[in-house]
């Protein structure tokens, strides 16, 4: 199982900050600043990082909900960043998104049935009768009965709404789903339900996930590969077990140490990060993490580190930090 489904190369997304007399672009928010990643079919890539570091933007840029500023997104070898609206349509079928806020992502004045039928109608999948059948099936898959069909989103609980969102993402039988913090609004037991569902789907259908979350335990639970983002860049990535067992980057270490452990008997030894989160509008020179890094060296202030495999690490485990040069 090693066919690469998704390949992201040097992806960049800058948001212009306009101003002045002619609304010229005065500055750029480098929300995603050169990201490379690879996702095998049927696997999950877990993405973590500080809030505002560009995770959602990356996810959206991959789905071309944002037009990337630079770089490539290859889906099964085709660069979809260059496709026009028409040519993109078949690829839209293959990639879907699950949104962070289950309520906000459902049109409040459309019933579940309408919401789920829409993509089928749009892509003219099957006869109308088959589409009806398919909608029921989808609901069934996410564990909801047909009674949900003619109801509105506000009538459901958070977990149920999230499942509707998942059903919609599944409607077109995609091979890639970007899940942007799909469980952070849910409490633990509902969260577990949703995570189980995701795991089942992946197992049954071989769907690949790009899974974004704050909760590192969740990420560990779902991911095959984990990437850690900081200020628009991936600073560390590798197989989940490798990263969790042996985090290399100081930021990853800080993250890991900050995970609250539901075990009151365990002592705490957190790495507390000092200093302010730098702004993606004018990122610091050198390593973006250096102003907060407990192990920063002179070199870090001027030289931008690149991702490489540190000595002794597993294959595929890369980190961009001068400590490992």
């Amino acid at each position, binding site marked *: 199982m090693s066919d690469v489904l998704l390949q992201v190369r040097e992806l960049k997304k800058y948001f212009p900050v306009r101003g002045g007399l002619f609304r010229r672009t005065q500055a750029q928010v480098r929300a995603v600043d050169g990201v490379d990643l690879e996702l095998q079919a049927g696997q999950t890539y877990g993405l973590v990082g500080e809030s505002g570091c560009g995770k959602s933007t990356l996810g*959206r840029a991959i*789905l071309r*909900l944002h037009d990337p500023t630079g770089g490539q997104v290859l889906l099964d070898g085709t660069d979809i960043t260059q496709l026009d609206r028409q040519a*993109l*349509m078949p690829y*839209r*079928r293959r*990639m*879907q*998104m699950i*949104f*962070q*806020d289950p309520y*906000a*992502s*459902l*049109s*409040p*004045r*459309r*019933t579940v049935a309408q919401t789920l039928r*829409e*993509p089928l109608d*749009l*892509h003219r999948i099957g006869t109308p009768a088959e589409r009806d059948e398919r909608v029921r*099936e989808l609901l*069934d*898959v*996410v*564990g*909801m*009965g047909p*009674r*949900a069909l003619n*109801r*509105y989103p*506000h*009538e*459901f*609980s958070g977990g*149920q709404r999230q*499942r509707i*969102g998942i059903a*919609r993402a599944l409607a*077109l039988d995609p091979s890639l789903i970007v899940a942007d913090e799909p469980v952070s609004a849910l409490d633990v037991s509902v969260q577990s*339900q949703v995570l*189980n*569902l995701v795991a*089942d*789907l992946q197992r*049954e259908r071989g769907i690949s996930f790009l899974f974004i979350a704050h909760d590192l335990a969740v990420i560990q639970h779902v991911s095959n590969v984990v990437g850690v983002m900081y200020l628009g860049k991936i600073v560390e990535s590798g197989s989940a077990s490798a990263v969790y067992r042996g985090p290399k980057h100081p930021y990853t270490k800080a993250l890991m140490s900050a995970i609250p452990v539901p075990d009151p008997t365990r002592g705490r030894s957190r790495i507390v990060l000092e200093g302010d989160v730098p702004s993606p509008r004018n990122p610091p020179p050198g390593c973006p993490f250096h102003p907060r890094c407990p192990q920063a060296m002179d070199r870090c202030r001027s030289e931008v580190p690149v991702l490489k495999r540190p000595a002794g690490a597993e294959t595929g485990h890369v980190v961009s930090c001068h400590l490992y040069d």
Partner: protein
Amino acid sequence: MSTVAEELPAAGADDAGSASLWSKGLYKFRRDRTGMWSLAVVLAYVVIAAGVWLGFWATGWADLAGGKWEPVSAQHWFGTNIIGQDIFDRAIYSTKTSFEVGLVVAVLATVIGAVLGAVAGFFSGSWLDEVILWLMGVLDSIPFLLFVAAIAYTLQGNPYSMHIAMIVTFWITAGRLVRGEVIKLKEMEYVEAGHALGLPEFTIIFRHILPNTSHILLVQATITFVAAIKSEVILSFLGLGVKDGMSWGLMISESSQEVLAGFFNNFLAASALLFGLVMAFNLFSDALQDALDPRTVSES
């Protein structure tokens, strides 16, 4: 395909209420006594207007049924006016005019405002938005009276020139409100979900976004309804109002001379009916706004 996640309960088995937003709104509305009363009053007016329209009553509004300024009598319930027409008939007949003006203007102005506002909001920042904003600015800069008069001239003799003038002016408010709301809504994730599914932009605008501004549209439509009726009053005073037929505005402007002579019937009849309808509509729109307030409806 087998059902995964079998431990998940079937949704909705014990969900509280399966009502839609609208039926919930309706439910809330039904519990609002003022709202129901105002609705009843509005409906009564609708019935009156329909009766006029079908020729059930007030058919003699144009006849000289009596003498000058006859007092209230069994024959003339509100007396007669200066030329001997039956004031009651005329006041009743005017109900129809009010609805013709109010409804036509309210519906069209709101629809146009909704469509243009939504398009502008969705493409905010683009040239399309600029053009629509420009149009709003331009139409806003021309003083209302001037504008109505100008349209009345341009459409010399067209019986709908007043309607057109009002629509062209009133859609702007709805348009601005919808535009603002759409700018807010288009950042919602469900819009993004539409994009992700590859839905065409116009489907997103009109099926996903616009319905969610319905609370604004409804309230705006009721306000426009009232505004149109009231503007008709002023325009009639200026001679730019209804061409044929009768309206409360005309009756009130007739009466502004008569009250001096101590003859109040025209004034009272028209004002009372106008007041009743405007008041009922105001309260009705208030109640509707409350009933459809998403903050109180969508909490589950």
